């Protein structure tokens, strides 16, 4: 079978399928009596990936297979197709997600212990509704709290093939300032300005307090 035809089939299938496709799934497109030759699918994927160099889309591999996606460089223009703003996620949501991703399986109580603050039911529900996390079991302690883990959908959404591709967890940082009798030597005015800048930079106010649903302001 012609490699050009195989490449065309793979390209068309990846663009026609509503979800990423694995090499096995791609192989399933070919009838048994005329299968794609050994290695030809991988070759087609390589060729397609290279052919994207100059294009507006790229071929990426995520947890559940290969997919074409819009290049980040042109996405800002493409995003104007959708008038409504994309969901933004609060720090509470992202920190909860991070703890589930890096420490799974983990209970809500354990998340609260590390964050030092209650995790609202809505935060967990939001992550479950997005199908980014799911209950993977229950810890065998009184109350049988649910253990949460991340899903393939989480990896797909963030363009990852596996959890290994998450950014490495930072090293523990020293907290040298935690010494007694350290003078509070920063002038109040300077400190206030620093706080103001920080807060403006991370603009926490506009995303705080709405765990329930990511705002879709437009």
């Amino acid at each position: 079978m012609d490699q050009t035809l195989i490449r065309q089939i793979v390209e068309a299938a990846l663009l026609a399928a509503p979800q990423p496709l694995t090499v096995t799934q791609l192989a399933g497109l070919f009838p048994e009596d005329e299968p794609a030759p050994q290695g030809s699918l991988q070759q087609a994927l390589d060729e397609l990936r290279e052919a994207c160099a100059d294009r507006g889309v790229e071929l990426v591999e995520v947890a559940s297979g290969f997919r074409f996606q819009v290049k980040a460089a042109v996405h800002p223009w493409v995003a104007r197709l959708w008038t409504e703003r994309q969901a933004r996620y609060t720090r509470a949501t992202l920190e909860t997600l991070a703890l589930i991703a890096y420490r799974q399986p983990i209970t809500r109580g354990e998340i609260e212990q590390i964050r030092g603050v209650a995790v609202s039911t809505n935060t967990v529900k939001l992550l479950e509704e997005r199908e980014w996390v799911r209950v993977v079991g229950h810890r065998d302690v009184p109350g049988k709290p649910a253990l949460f883990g991340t899903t393939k959908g989480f990896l797909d959404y963030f363009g990852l093939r596996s959890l290994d591709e998450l950014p490495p967890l930072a090293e523990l940082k020293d907290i040298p300032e935690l010494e007694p009798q350290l003078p509070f030597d920063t002038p109040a005015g300077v400190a206030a300005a620093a706080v103001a800048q920080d807060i403006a930079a991370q603009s926490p106010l506009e995303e705080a307090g709405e765990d329930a649903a990511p705002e879709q302001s437009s």
Partner: protein
Amino acid sequence: MSEPIAQDAARPSHPQQQEMPLAVVKGQPVLQMPQDLYIPPDALEVFLEAFEGPLDLLLYLIRRQNLDILDIPVAEITRQYVDYIGVMQDMRFELAAEYLVMAAILAEIKSRMLLPRPPAEEGTEADPRAELVRRLQEYERYKKAAEDIDQLDRLDRDTALASVHVPDRSAIKAPPPVDLKEMLLALRDVLKRADLYTHHAIRREALSVRQRMGEVLSQLSDRQFHGFETLFTVEEGRLGVVVTFLSILELAKEQLLEIVQEAPLAPIYVKSLAATDDDTALPDPSSDETGADAPAD
């Protein structure tokens, strides 16, 4: 490449350029962070929303303000935190509780630092700050991890799925999968029933003979006489020859095969008595049936 407008529009617009308000509390812009950071009642709301809890606030104070969190006026902070309970009524009380717990922890650490330790315990007692430091460090790690995750290119925000139109959505119909066991179970049921109709009980036989019977019939489908020997394939070995021979005998028994020998030791010829596919113009014996499967079970 120029920065597209879409990106800019995603950021909230701040109308004032000269001085950004730290926050808006009760409709009034707050331009200056109150000096006694941990106490001001009006700023409480700001903090509760700007920080992800007491650990986050403490980290901020340590990292950015060089504040010695242990050198705070414990009596004062305690009094004011208690005052906040009133303010908290119409706010998120569970958050206030967490800040109060943290204040209590700080107070406890401070008091333990001030009190002389019993000599016996001096060597063994851990630094009361150690646990707090450990928690702060661990929280800081995951706070960073959350920021890292937020930086990942993600669908909808940084990219979108590429897809094309499929002009012909007609699906291919595939026949159902069948498990061998499924078929065997069906057969077992038949056999069970067949036991009731005893004369049709099936006895065990070599299936290779059955298979070969079909093959021999196909070979003879031209309804001509064939040399007996031509039906055997030497390469199959003795077992193959025996299987073929048995199948010929079985076919003869079932009157599907005619075996002819003109004289002793003369060549043997075989001919199929089974009609070939050409004969299918014959009346279909099934025409008198309903055409529907009678319920089997």
